[in-house]
């Protein structure tokens, strides 16, 4: 490539501010012709924001955007599309009720001499184009009747069929079958040869090393590394993503977790055997002893949250069993799981866990109502007593039981949620990112609380993107990758260094 070749797309010092969050902070990124450029980072690192800036969905607050060396401003997705930038989003963004062919050609339908859409030609061309992507189904049928992977292929075909010069792929393989992934890589190879620049977002390291030339790593809205992917080994890449310099990894002093719990031994309180769910989980098995904290490690998209959901009965399983205290759940569903003693703290406490408009008392009472009511009548006194107990035991800082949960700090909200879970008298606690979005002090308290609960004999499953928290909070760590168990860390192995090693090592 000669020096005079201007990059296809270039952002210099771009920033984007959202209320309360600096989503992008002085990020620069360059995409050259014929380059497959991996864009990686953990959740909230700013990948999606950067993509949306590049595709005109967001306008940056500061910094420059250059297209073929010339400064440009994209006022909307149409501007970016006009400049030859096509995007394939993670969720299929097509219209399910319209036919496959009409989806493929929407906005650029072939027209006859009267200016009307030439339906026959459109269907014929659609069938020809899609055959190149291994899709042979009837293009006149509604798109929504196709399998998700096939829909993704249609989206891909749509994105590259016009002379796209830049194609952005946001986790394109997340809903594809292995065979379809191969087709996708074939298409990427063709685009690469045509000189199209590709921005490839994925959490699957194997894929990145197989097809990408360059890599840019973001963390907390900042650029941490950019360069050729062959100059960066997997361990370095993971350590950049997680933000833990390998040399700096120490065992103690980062979190408020105590030492290991003397797992009481005996029978496992939770036992999962061979959990399978299409595209999401493959043969997940692990067990949790009473009084033990088992961490689920792995990158985003490795299947951590899915595993939690599967255990809690919220993810339909193709096969596998969940056993609580020796009893197998017959038909896994959230109600059965709750009855069996599995309490779940979902990843997004605002959307899935708490009623922010209600008081602390009401939030806790919601969970215990079924247990406290006699023939549908609830004893107010009993509720008061339980609520008082939890407020003091979990050290919830509030003006009183009637304060609105929405007015509490993030840490105290999290404690209310924990109180709610504990009020159901669980045997197993599933915690998905229990300290996300809460300040340092509250974090320490929540961590200490998790310790205490385990010490009291609960089985705890902990998911955290914070490697430090995971390693120090867990007695054992089950590491997931691509929806399968990639390894397990026990005893002295439970360190961030070992964790990264397992994450980075290819399964093969």
């Amino acid at each position, binding site marked *: 490539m000669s020096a005079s070749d201007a990059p296809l797309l270039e952002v210099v010092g771009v920033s984007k501010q959202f209320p309360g969050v600096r989503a992008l902070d002085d990020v620069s990124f360059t995409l050259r012709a014929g380059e497959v450029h991996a864009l990686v980072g953990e959740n909230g690192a700013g990948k999606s924001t950067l993509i949306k800036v590049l595709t005109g969905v967001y306008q940056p607050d500061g910094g420059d955007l250059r297209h073929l060396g010339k400064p440009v401003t994209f006022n909307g997705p149409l501007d970016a599309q006009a400049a030859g930038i096509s995007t394939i*989003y993670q969720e299929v*963004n097509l*219209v399910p009720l*319209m036919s496959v062919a*009409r989806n493929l050609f*929407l*906005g650029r*339908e072939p027209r006859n001499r009267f200016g009307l*859409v030439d339906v026959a030609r459109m269907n014929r061309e659609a069938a020809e184009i899609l055959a190149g992507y291994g899709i042979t189904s009837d293009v006149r049928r509604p798109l929504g009747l196709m399998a998700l992977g096939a829909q993704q292929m249609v989206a891909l075909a749509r994105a590259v069929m016009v002379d796209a010069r830049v194609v952005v792929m946001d986790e394109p393989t997340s809903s594809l079958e292995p065979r379809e992934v191969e087709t996708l890589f074939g298409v990427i190879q063709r685009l690469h040869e045509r000189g199209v620049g590709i921005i490839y977002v994925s959490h699957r390291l194997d894929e990145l090393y197989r097809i990408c030339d360059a890599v840019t790593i973001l963390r907390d809205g900042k650029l941490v590394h950019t360069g050729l992917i062959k100059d960066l080994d997997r361990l370095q890449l993971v350590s950049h993503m997680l933000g833990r310099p390998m040399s700096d990894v120490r065992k103690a002093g980062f979190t408020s977790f105590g030492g290991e719990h003397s797992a009481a031994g005996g029978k496992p309180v939770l036992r999962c055997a061979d959990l399978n769910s299409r595209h999401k989980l493959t043969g997940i098995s692990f067990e949790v002893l009473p009084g033990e904290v088992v961490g689920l490690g792995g990158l985003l998209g490795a299947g951590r949250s899915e595993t939690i959901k599967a255990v809690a009965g919220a993810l339909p399983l193709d096969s596998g069993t969940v056993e609580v205290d020796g009893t197998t759940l017959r038909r896994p569903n959230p109600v059965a799981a709750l009855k069996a003693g599995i309490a779940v703290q979902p990843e997004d406490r605002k959307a899935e866990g708490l009623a922010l408009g209600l008081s602390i008392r009401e939030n806790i009472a919601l969970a215990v109502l079924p247990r406290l009511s006699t023939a549908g009548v609830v004893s107010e006194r009993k509720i008061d007593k339980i609520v008082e107990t939890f407020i003091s035991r979990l050290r919830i800082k509030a003006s009183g039981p009637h304060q609105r949960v929405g007015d509490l700090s993030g840490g105290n909200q999290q404690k209310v949620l924990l109180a709610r879970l504990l009020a159901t008298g669980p045997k197993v606690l599933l915690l998905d990112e229990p300290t996300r979005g809460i300040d340092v002090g509250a974090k320490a308290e929540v961590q200490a609380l998790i310790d205490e609960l385990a010490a009291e004999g609960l089985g705890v499953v902990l998911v955290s993107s914070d490697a430090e928290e995971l390693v120090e909070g867990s007695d054992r760590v089950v590491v997931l990758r691509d929806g399968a168990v990639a390894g397990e860390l026990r005893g002295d192995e439970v360190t961030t260094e070992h964790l990264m090693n397992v994450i980075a090592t290819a399964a093969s």
Partner: protein
Amino acid sequence: MTLVAEPKLEKAEAASLRTERIVELVQRQGALAVLAIVLVVGLVAYDDFRSFDNAGTILVSAAPAALIALGMTFVIITGGIDLSVGSLYVLGGVLAAWASQYGIAAAFAVPLAVCGLFGLVQGLVIAYARLAPFIVTLAGLLGARGLMLALSDEGGTTYLVDPGAFKDFGKGELLGVKYAVYLVAVLFVVGMVTLYRTRFGQSVYAIGGSEDAARLMGVRIRGTQIRVYVLSGLLAGLAGSINAARLGSGVTVLGTGMELDAIAAVVVGGTLLTGGAGTLGGTIAGVLLLQVIQNLINQDGGVSSAWQTVISGTFIALVVVAQTYLAKLRRVASG
């Protein structure tokens, strides 16, 4: 998909495939199927129903409703709703009767302009202020009704259509069928071409199917929304015009609830209220079905108008329940 050329297909499988196809056909053309049944019943049971005159009566009285339902189909496919059309229809009739003193062109142009303007304002508010179409067009309903009452001195004044070309248009026939019916037929053909064969039509479906996806695919959301409400307003005004021409006056009491009849016809015709799917053929069948039922009840003569409405309502409910049931069957059969 050649069913005949598959001799190896298990018998049961072939049968289930055939069932699926029949169910699919009935579901897609449900209104048409029910219309056929109702027509057969009518032809057998009532002598008067069989006459050519009666067929003409059904068509000409269905004409205004058909025009309104035509616009409503576009609106509903985008996922919207237009409640203002009943009021605009009456307003259009009053304006047409008043303007007929200035000739036939004015009698068509004035209602079109005023009702089109109503649609434009509603479309702008829906597209730019992003308010719910239900609320915006409810305001339009009240506004148009108020304007109509002001023009007619709260119903005290009835404008008569001036004798002339406009009145002749209302009475004129070709081959025993009123001009208005031809006009409606032509507009439906134009509507079908627009909906199925233009980019605008594709945008209408795309927006109703998934507005977010449509936006990301570069569909101009606002422009499309504005256009469908203008279209709906224009057609309601035109419906008012042809009705005034037929009746010879701008009647102020008719048309209340017309928007609901139009919505019913569109939904019975198989268009999804949630948007994204629907056909104009279905809408025609829906309009005719409601009109034929009305006509049949009239043939009977023994039913009071209050009970006629109850019967119509029950019938609509039955058709929609049947469609939903068939849609479920189809899903089971194919999945």
